């Protein structure tokens, strides 16, 4: 029997108070995610249970019990307090998936500060935009990533501390730099966890916008209620599970379901800090006896590409439940997974802004391959007519995925950008930016984005941000960035570029521009294809018609071109 039991019964009798009660929380009580994920589990007598089994790419392993992570998060919290970090100050985590990332996240929350995780592959420009917007006080990083922060330090007046967790003393520390070593620090046993309340800010994740710069999605400690219950019911996490979430905590899946939910449930989770390799992944599942695996469609398609034969080399019989998130899970991947693992991947749908799963396929419910599933109990979801901004009276029509904005882990606002937050609503509905249709039984079927945002391997990339960065390259006069279909990553970034006088298109220039964007923004934002064109299609008012280029890449109808400039 799954944790959720009967989906229909749960919908009928649902209240978020179920999670509140299980967590022993009542309205107006203190709620601190850091405490719930560590101290509370120890108080339940599970201090010696393994919380985190970590392995790095060199094969080094580290195992932490719940008592170990309680002490480590206290120690990090005490260190940050010692630096003068106050509640609600932003502390950025800019690291690979090393233990300090997971423990640092909870340590930050324990002192009431706001954790701001940023993907460690971000380039200096991506960092600058996000750290400036958040007015971040401290960055916790590794010596390998510190140079990217040093490069922009002069432009970050609010940044007081650059904390390096693996400083080896080989090079002297620079301005504002400080060393923290978890292993060399005396563990802090008694620690006053800051008494955050339900609406105290907890996490700031940045997400890409269509027309503007990235937006900081503000979450609060009460998000725990949703994250706890969705992990229990949608991911079916159980006390004896060995759980593997493959997401990087630089992104929201990696924090909501890679840190908060499993630790709040007292689950043993494992982390493999290594690049993708089918052999390594299967070996990891076999060796750790992984029971619950939460991954992403791009990874699943990469495993499909590696073939069925390799699967037979490993004993993967420990796997009990599989789930996926990040992009639409194509039906072929679901069917393949049933064939090779003997069980399907259950697709789940949510966003940085939702903070937790809002639509999904649940254990015990019929999986319709290719479908996003049904709203999580307590969530009201619909498909909105984009003209009337009302739910379609009949099912089967493609419209906007919209939600009643009333679950605990919903974002509270965009950081310093309430205007953008308000624009996410129409007629009382939260607009996700995705399109879908509903079938007769209430299953959602993804139909694409409703804006220009590019979803590449489950990560959102803003064409605007890439275009802005492209213009900083000395050869680029104008650019337009769109998605193009990709069999592995769903979509990848493609740039159309016109060159300044004196520059000629060449394969070397193509590579130079690719690397320019990769280093400035991130590998995800790097155009995988650059097409040099003599001019870009524009409206008569001079606006680049990205829509036409997108249609060309996807083989779609070009549509209305009446506003197209006549060259």
């Amino acid at each position, binding site marked *: 029997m799954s944790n959720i039991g009967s989906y229909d019964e749960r919908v009928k009798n649902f209240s978020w108070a179920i999670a509140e009660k299980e967590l022993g929380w009542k309205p107006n009580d203190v709620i601190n995610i850091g405490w719930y994920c560590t101290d509370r589990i120890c108080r339940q007598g599970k201090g010696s249970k393994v919380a985190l089994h970590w392995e790095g*790419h*060199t094969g080094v392993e580290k195992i932490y019990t719940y008592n170990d992570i309680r002490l480590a998060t206290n120690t990090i919290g005490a260190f940050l307090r010692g630096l003068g970090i106050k509640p609600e100050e932003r502390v950025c985590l800019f690291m*690979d998936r090393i233990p300090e990332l997971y423990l640092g996240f909870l340590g930050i929350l324990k002192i009431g500060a706001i954790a701001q995780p940023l993907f460690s*592959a971000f380039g200096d420009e991506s960092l600058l935009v996000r750290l400036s917007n958040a007015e971040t006080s401290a960055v916790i990083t590794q*010596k*390998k*990533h510190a*140079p*990217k922060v040093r490069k922009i330090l002069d432009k970050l007046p609010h940044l007081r501390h650059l904390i390096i967790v693996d400083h080896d003393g*080989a*090079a002297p520390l620079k301005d504002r730099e400080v060393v923290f070593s978890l292993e060399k620090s005396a563990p802090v046993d008694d620690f006053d966890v800051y008494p955050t309340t339900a609406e105290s800010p907890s996490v700031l994740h940045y997400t890409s916008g269509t027309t503007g710069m990235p937006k900081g999605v503000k979450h609060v400690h009460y998000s725990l209620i949703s994250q706890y219950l969705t992990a229990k019911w949608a991911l079916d996490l159980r006390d004896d599970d060995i759980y593997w979430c493959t997401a990087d905590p630089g992104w929201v899946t990696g924090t909501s379901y890679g840190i908060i939910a499993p630790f709040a449930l007292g689950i043993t989770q494992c982390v493999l*800090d*290594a*690049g*993708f*390799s089918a*052999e*390594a992944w299967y070996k990891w599942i076999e060796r750790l006896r992984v029971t619950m695996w939460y991954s992403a469609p791009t990874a699943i398609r*990469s495993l499909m*590409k*590696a073939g069925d034969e390799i699967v037979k080399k490993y004993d993967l019989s420990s796997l009990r439940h599989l789930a996926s998130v990040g992009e639409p899970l194509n039906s072929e991947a679901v069917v393949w997974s049933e064939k090779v693992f003997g069980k399907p991947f259950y697709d789940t749908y949510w966003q940085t802004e939702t903070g937790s799963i809002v639509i999904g396929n649940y254990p015990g419910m019929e999986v319709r391959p290719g479908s996003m599933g049904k709203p999580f109990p307590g969530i009201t979801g619909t498909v909105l007519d984009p003209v009337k901004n009302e739910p379609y009276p009949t099912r089967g029509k493609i419209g906007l995925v919209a939600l009643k904005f009333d679950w605990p882990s919903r974002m509270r606002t965009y950081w310093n950008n309430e205007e953008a937050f308000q624009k996410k609503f129409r007629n009382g509905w939260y607009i996700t930016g995705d399109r879908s249709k509903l079938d007769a039984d209430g299953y959602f079927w993804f139909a694409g984005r409703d804006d220009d945002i590019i979803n*590449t*391997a489950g990560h959102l990339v803003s064409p605007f941000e890439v275009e802005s960065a492209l213009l900083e390259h000395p050869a680029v006069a104008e650019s337009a960035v769109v998605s193009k279909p990709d069999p592995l990553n769903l979509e990848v970034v493609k740039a159309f570029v016109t060159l300044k006088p004196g520059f000629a298109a060449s*394969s*070397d220039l*193509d*590579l130079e521009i*690719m*690397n320019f964007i*990769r280093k400035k923004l991130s*590998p*995800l934002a*790097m155009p*995988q294809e650059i097409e040099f064109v003599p001019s870009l299609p524009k409206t008569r008012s001079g606006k680049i018609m990205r829509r036409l280029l997108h249609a060309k890449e996807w083989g779609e109808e070009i549509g209305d071109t009446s506003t197209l400039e006549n060259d």
Partner: protein
Amino acid sequence: MAEELKDIVLNYVVKEYLEDDSEPLTYETPLISGGIVDSFSMVSLKRFLENKYAISIPDDEATPEAFDSVNKIVSLVERFVAKKG
């Protein structure tokens, strides 16, 4: 050619992808599984090799395994250079 090719690829990886150049990189250092080059960046590394050696590496040959060390990349490039004649 192999030795020269090895050094060209190694130097390019150090220059373009290694964030911490105090870390030693050898011909056998795992690049993809070691997290030095991610799957997206692999596209630019492939493009570099194609430009430099006037070859075309099909996507199904450009696997994480084939790009996982300088030595493996060199084997791959040599194969396509030989094919070209």
